[in-house]
């Protein structure tokens, strides 16, 4: 099958990214499961997987970033990767936008955030829609929303799992950062936590009991700072995984 695909159009890679792989491990398994469930034939790089370079780029290590982009391109080529699916908005944005800038025409791999893949599967009837049972609110991750213009896909997925979305005052294009990005979580933890706590308050104002997001960093960071509201990553809404 792999060889056949190589001839036809190359491999689809599921790239969880460092944060999901090493920290939010519980999400990785679930994402793998759902991809299989909707019939996506994918490969993973496991130990061969390298950081996409987002933290290096954001911190200003531009040469390191360029090098990582080149190394990753080589790894992907060696594995005949034609399409990347990732659940991490930072990785997705880095591959899609920053790699094109850094590598130019050399970079011709299709990049999809997993929400785009899952939304398509819902449309195709591969994921069954559930009855609405509960209210939920959604935090647009900056790199997913403002960064890549992906606003509706995660919302469709949430609805499919039986939730009604009660929007925050600041959402979609106007979403308010969780405070963890850009290296702030590690460089300025106190600041990062204060921002997250304010975001949590905004979420609580909607009256929802669950705050859902679709990014491993937003998820971990908001969860760490949450009180009186449960934080869930999008994939955790799928009860049967």
């Amino acid at each position: 099958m792999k060889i056949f695909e190589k001839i036809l159009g190359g491999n689809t890679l599921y790239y969880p990214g460092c944060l999901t792989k090493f920290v939010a491990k519980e999400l990785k398994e679930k994402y793998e499961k759902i991809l299989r469930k909707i019939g996506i034939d994918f490969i993973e790089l496991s130990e061969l997987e390298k950081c996409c370079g987002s933290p290096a780029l954001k911190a200003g290590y531009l040469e390191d970033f360029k090098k990582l982009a080149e190394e990753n391109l080589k790894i992907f080529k060696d594995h005949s990767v034609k399409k990347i699916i990732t659940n991490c908005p930072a990785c997705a944005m880095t591959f899609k936008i920053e790699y094109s800038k850094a590598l130019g025409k050399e970079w011709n791999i299709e990049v999809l955030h997993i929400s785009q893949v899952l939304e398509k599967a819902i449309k195709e009837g591969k994921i069954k829609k559930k009855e609405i049972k509960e209210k939920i609110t959604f935090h647009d991750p900056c790199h997913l929303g403002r960064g890549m213009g992906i606003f509706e896909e995660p919302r469709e997925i949430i609805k499919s799992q039986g939730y009604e979305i009660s929007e925050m005052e600041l959402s979609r294009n106007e979403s308010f950062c969780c405070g963890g990005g850009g290296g702030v979580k590690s460089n300025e933890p106190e600041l990062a936590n204060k921002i997250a706590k304010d975001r949590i308050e905004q979420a609580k104002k909607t009256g929802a009991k669950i705050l859902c997001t679709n990014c491993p960093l937003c998820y971990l960071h908001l969860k760490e700072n949450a009180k009186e509201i449960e934080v869930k990553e999008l994939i955790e809404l799928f009860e049967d995984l």
Partner: protein
Amino acid sequence: MKGEFLSEKTKAVLWKVVLEYREKRKMALLRNNLEYENFREELYQIKKKAISEIESLKKKAISALKENGINVFEAKDVKEAREIIEKLAEGKTKIIKSKSNVFNEIEEEGFLTDKELTETDLGDFICQIMGEKESHPVLPAIHLTPEEIAKKIKEKFNVDLESKPEKIANFVRNLLREKISQSEIGISGANAITSDGKILILENEGNISLVSKWPQTHIIVSGFEKIVENLESALKIVKASAIWGTGQDFPVYVSIISGPSKTADIQNQVVIGAQGAREVNLILIDNGRTKLLKEGFEELLYCINCGACLNFCPVFHQIGRNYGSKYLGSKGIIFAGFSESFKKAVDSNCFSCTSCMACYQNCPVKINLPELMKKLRGYLEKENLQTGVNKEMIENIREFGNPFGKTEEGKIPKRLYCC
């Protein structure tokens, strides 16, 4: 991080104002029949074109302004700008001033302290008497309540005032009228300058009209990036400044100054100095702007100083003016890197930016501030001004291919150097 966090009280006031602003801005666009993205694109193109040919526009503008009887000075840095102002103010003591970001840029301890300098913008005046710094470029006193202001007025002027905005405004109006009537010099900024020699200044209060017209001498301080091709473009910028600055359709007043006041009413003999300023001086300052152009940061010079980038910035909402230097927010930090020093950019909390892109999304001229911030951090890296945490992160990536370093089976890394 340098500096303190804002109090919960200040944060609440800030949010209230910002959310009201958001609604006003939406309505202002609607009433002007403007679509958010289309108008931004139009403004972006205007500024992009102007900055791409700024050298020739500047030459044209300077010769047209001079032709119109305006004295034009070019200052390469803040020191030169201060010297020019000091020279122009020689022998005079009473100065009135309206809001000017460029004046804030050139100001330093001891500058003009031998003069009596009065702020005429209500917000700035309040900050001046409170001994506080502005907390927002468009809403300088946003962090102060009417009660606090009234208390200070009692202390300073021994006047009992009801703590109501209209009472405070009225008290200041009367007080300032006296100062204005005695003034010899007026200092203001500019919002746009056209290549055919017109200077546009916008305002709501009417104080700039007085500052620019009452005293004998008017001094305008501006960055050269304010120059655009023509009046049509300049008026679009004026409109955008109102919409994005305060959520208004249009400013209450726009002064278009194309020379000193004059009359030819007596036998058609031109006399300079009727009711307006007899002498108009324009100081065009560089102070790092050419460096920004050369280093690929030209987008920063599109800035019209509306302050919109701060309004939804998660960091600004926590640390206020500690986020920035002479100018606030990510724009201010990047500007500090090139007009002051890279060290200053670090001290202005350059590493507090979460790259959330809210500034970019809100900027009327579409300055991709997060992109410029990454680039600036690239300079800091070369200057060895990185944070310890970032150094650990990059070492991990170099050695282990991930930001967390050596990862052990079943263990979760403690520090999340991401993303």
